[in-house]
């Protein structure tokens, strides 16, 4: 694990071997770098930004070319740029069906996940009860289930219940990961709310449920929003279960629908690119609104559990 050797604590010895290569960059917090260092930083960051941006920009560019093989001759697109792909996708494909499926499944998962997980997050944040450690361990392990563990038995169970190709079935499957994740995220958030508030509530004669519902829940709205958003984005982007459990093409989510443009017989890459852009724009806009809270939430629970 070369990534981890970096953070091995060294005995605080005094010396670096002489001739240690120059430090990559001034490490001081918010330090103002010298002129050359600043130039170098700008250079590296610009290159990195270009790399981050290029594949997405390229996808957008290709979506403007009207023929399905235009991606092989990008130079020709300049002369015949058009938004035809977009109007075709919106008018003649199942785009809106897919959008409906994606929204039903993602929102369903979000609502169930947050509702079910909220009280649990509070309980594990504030109370110590017999079985606490085991319960936390279960929450942690559930989050790292590879899809391969559950996909086969889930497939059989859902076929027994006739829930294959059914929104409810997919929502249930997603809840198996969303619920523990939300509980974990929310625990992290509740931990940041001062315990004195609970005490004040108790002194005023509220039951633990009362404290939770009247005092903590209103304070925890940002945390709930992060959990909700995380469930949404995970459910929205999930590929394996959706590809396996949704069979009719009007019930595909976007993740499956996009794949259906390229089959063995035909590859409508221009339409695929246009659809991809249409999906990407609202999702990433939404993402930018909440990403700051998201990061704090994801790393908070981690090792402190």
């Amino acid at each position: 694990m070369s990534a981890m050797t970096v953070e091995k604590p060294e005995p605080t010895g005094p010396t670096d071997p002489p001739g240690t290569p120059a430090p990559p960059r001034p490490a001081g917090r918010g330090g103002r770098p010298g002129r050359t260092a600043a130039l170098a930083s700008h250079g590296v960051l610009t290159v990195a930004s270009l790399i981050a941006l290029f594949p997405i920009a390229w996808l957008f560019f290709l979506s403007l070319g009207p023929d399905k093989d235009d991606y092989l001759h990008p130079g020709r697109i300049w002369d015949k740029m058009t938004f035809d792909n977009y109007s075709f996708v919106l008018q003649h494909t199942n785009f809106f069906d897919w959008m409906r499926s994606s929204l039903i499944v993602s929102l369903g998962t979000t609502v169930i996940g947050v509702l079910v997980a909220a009280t649990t997050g509070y309980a594990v944040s504030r109370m110590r009860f017999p079985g606490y450690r085991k319960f936390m361990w279960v929450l942690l392990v559930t989050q790292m289930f590879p899809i391969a563990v559950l996909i086969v038995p889930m497939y059989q169970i859902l076929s027994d219940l006739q829930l294959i190709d059914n929104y409810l079935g997919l929502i249930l499957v997603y809840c198996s990961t969303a619920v523990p994740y939300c509980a974990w995220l929310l625990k992290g958030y509740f931990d940041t709310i001062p315990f004195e508030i609970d005490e004040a509530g108790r002194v005023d004669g509220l039951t633990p449920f009362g404290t939770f519902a009247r005092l903590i829940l209103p304070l925890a709205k940002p945390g709930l929003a992060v959990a909700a958003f995380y469930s949404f984005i995970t459910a929205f982007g999930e590929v394996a279960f959706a590809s396996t459990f949704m069979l009719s093409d009007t019930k595909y989510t976007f993740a499956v629908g996009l794949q259906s443009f390229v089959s063995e017989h035909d590859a409508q890459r221009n339409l695929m690119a246009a659809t991809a852009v249409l999906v990407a724009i609202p999702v990433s806009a939404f993402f930018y609104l909440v990403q700051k809270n998201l990061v704090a939430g994801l790393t908070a629970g981690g090792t402190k559990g």
Partner: protein
Amino acid sequence: MTVAIDRATGKRRGEPGQRPGRLDRLRHAYQKYWYAYAMIAPVAVVLGGLVLYPLVRGLYLTLTDANSLNSARTIGVNHIDATYKFIGLDNYADILWGDTAYDRFWSHFIWTIVWTVCCVALHYCIGLGLALLLNQKLRGRTFYRLILVLPWAVPTFVTVFGWRFMLADGGIINSMLDAVHLPTPLWLEDTFWQRFAAIMVNTWCGVPFMMVSLLGGLQSIDSTLYEAADMDGASPWQKFWYVTLPGLRSVSSTVVLLGVIWTFNQFAVIFLLFGTTAPDAQILVTWAYYLGFGQQPRDFAQSAAYGMLLLAILVVFTSFYRRWLNRNEQQLAN
């Protein structure tokens, strides 16, 4: 009556006086903890129904020879009952040391390890480098940050298709390589280059998360530590090694753990990049999926057995990692 034992006032375990009888204790525990149990009940029920039950059923499947030909199924109006039978641990034995075990399991196993190590190392190092750059007072760093987060903001299933267009034979990457007279590998067909491309795409997708988390960690390091280091005449390299890295410990250990778990389980990148066309580039997760759903007849039992093995690997890794972290923590405290 008070259940909510807040950490501020410490624990409230050991009751005074002699131990009451078992029934009393049970009743007491019930009175004391029923709030807590009522509150975790919803999650416990959901986990029991959606995780535990499938897990047990999956475990049973791995002990049978179930596939899509002998499982219960309905064709038209006819319902055919399941005819698979119990075969004990044969699936596991076959996977681990059966006839072609190397091709079917161990080669994928090694590739999965290489994949995880490479990806997480690249994620972490590139993420840390960019975070350090963004942590300076630079003009336009908010702008850089917004752009650099983009690969995380756009759903993976969208960006992977973007990469597929670029990597295709005759796509932009090979055209550019050709223009500067470099060799143009078959990214999506040749095994080595498939693996290379997979790591590249996954690195591209995973760096922003690391970068943003580590940037948060950098900003929470107490700036007086740097001032103290400056006073002592520490070189920038020493400051990085003795102030920055230790200051990032808790964030690093979390993101590396998350990174390992996510990368090990990464399904979308490889599945969408290659579909089922590249048997040699499949990591264990996608290979298990291929066995269960990508081929005919579908081999449910083996696929589930792979799942169990994967879970076992992850659980073992995580507990060792946490133990290692704890030990380091103690060493540091001494």
